[in-house]
């Protein structure tokens, strides 16, 4: 027997359909540029530059992947090295900071916490120019100019990346039951051993998640790097930025696709190691 016709059911179906359509449009908006970049990178050799941007791609080939210039590889290398240094540096600064913030009863704890969060609130272009001015000042005083050096670049990146680690580790520490540590000490463990064997394994997912955030933030940054790099020593995003300002080089799509795949791989590894939920819970709540 056919179900009786109900205007309410039709309305509900329609509403649900519209909702799904709306969400799909958001997704298309969000993902279209990435799909297009990957897609066009497989275009075969073309007669005009315009044709190399065809989507869907024609004459599928890896042509543009063989055309990636040296400068882009060098920039990629620098970006990876820098991101790794920033992630490690941010952890070295951020983990003790988070422990101090959650555990100690320092006066002015709120102020210190605010200072640690500050780099997230300051517009990154302001951070960039502040570091540039700082390096000029230090250079004038000591004769050592830091702009255009790996150390100078890394310092700027660590500055913006540390709050993410502080956020993710704090989020985990706040839920951590201190009695576990106390139990370990009662059973004869030294405080250091208790920390290493009990606390550290618990906060490790937060450290991983924070390190990943730090890595990604550093790897994606333009506004700070643009002030702290010099020609011949640029990070990958800055390299593409200038390339886009000047002219279109289809080989960019190939290297960009490589970067997208590497980001994807990194996230898959993270998903395997700590799970996406940890990344979201800790990052969404505390990181930003």
């Amino acid at each position, binding site marked *: 027997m056919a179900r009786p016709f109900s205007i309410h059911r039709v309305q509900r179906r329609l509403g649900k359909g519209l909702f799904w359509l709306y969400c799909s449009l958001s997704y298309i908006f969000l993902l279209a540029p990435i799909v297009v*970049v990957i897609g066009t990178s497989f275009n075969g050799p073309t007669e005009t530059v315009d044709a190399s941007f065809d989507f869907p791609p024609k004459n599928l080939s890896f042509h543009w992947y063989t055309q990636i210039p040296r400068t882009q590889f060098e920039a990629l290398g620098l970006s990876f090295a820098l991101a790794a240094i920033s992630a490690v540096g941010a952890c070295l600064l951020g983990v003790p900071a988070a422990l101090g913030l959650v555990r100690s009863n320092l006066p002015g704890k709120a102020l210190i916490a605010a200072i640690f969060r500050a780099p997230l609130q*300051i517009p990154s272009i302001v951070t960039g120019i502040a570091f540039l001015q700082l390096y000029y000042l230090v250079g004038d005083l000591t004769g050592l100019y830091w702009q255009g050096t790996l150390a100078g670049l890394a310092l700027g990146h660590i500055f913006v990346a540390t709050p993410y680690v502080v956020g993710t580790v704090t989020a985990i520490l706040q839920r951590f039951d201190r009695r576990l540590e106390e139990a370990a000490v009662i059973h004869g463990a030294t405080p250091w051993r208790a920390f290493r064997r009990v606390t550290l394994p618990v906060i490790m997912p937060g450290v991983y998640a924070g390190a990943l955030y730090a890595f990604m933030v550093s790897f994606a940054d333009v506004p700070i790097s643009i002030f702290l790099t010099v020609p011949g020593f640029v990070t990958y995003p800055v390299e593409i930025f200038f390339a886009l300002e000047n002219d279109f080089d289809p080989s960019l799509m190939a290297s960009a696709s490589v970067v997208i795949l590497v980001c994807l791989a990194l996230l898959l590894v993270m998903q395997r190691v700590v799970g996406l939920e940890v990344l979201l819970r800790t990052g969404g709540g505390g990181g930003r």
Partner: protein
Amino acid sequence: MFSFILVAASQLVFLERSFFKDLGLGRTGKDFILDNYVRFFTDGFYLNTLWVTVKTSALAALFTLLLGFPVAYLIARMRSRWAMVLLASIVVSTFITIVIKVYGLIVIFSASGVLNKTLLSLGLVSGPYSIFGKETGVVIGLMHFTLGFGVLLLYSVIQTIPRSFEEAAQIHGASRWRVYYRVIFPLALPGVTAMVLMVFNMCMGAFTSAALLGGGRVFTLPVLIQRTVFMDIKYSMAATLAAVLLFSVILINILSIYLLRRMRAAHLVTV
């Protein structure tokens, strides 16, 4: 920790520079003057830049909320394994550097790109439609920068709202729409305001998408700062612009938090 405070303090080094006069070629005078600030607040060009920055950021934050909220809700309430896939694709798109996304946008919106070919063949536009050098383009670029963050934040907010609240409302006869705007939205409002403010902050400082999609015609403060450093080589003017940007961000944030508190006190919003 001490070193960190040192770094935080050093952030204000540039403020000092903003009080000196530019002598050209990056040299600055020694006298303490307010010239740069006077110039900023009397020159229509600079004031307009500030206005464009605030306007595009506010629009981007608003649209991020409009596009992001339903998606975040969808993922948070999905019970199948697909939720993880949808979430993962948001995370991926968030973490990919904005330069690459802008690159994709340029390909999509170029005169012979996918979109224009489709629009032209459908007869929807007479000539190729372009977003470059327009504020629309800048807003679209900013949204690509923030939408992923927005969705992830809203997702974590909506997840904390127990599903049973919605069910209770539905059992008592509330329509789907009513559940949304009487139950979910008010409960999510603190998170929503936090997200909107954060996205607004991000946009105010966003440089890349505004610089590339503005095409040298739309100037936001970050774009102007970079140009002042690299093209005009006027460090103290750039420092002034940076200071104005920083303090307008702080001011707008304080103001909106204050307004929200007032509204809460007057029971205009039930948070």
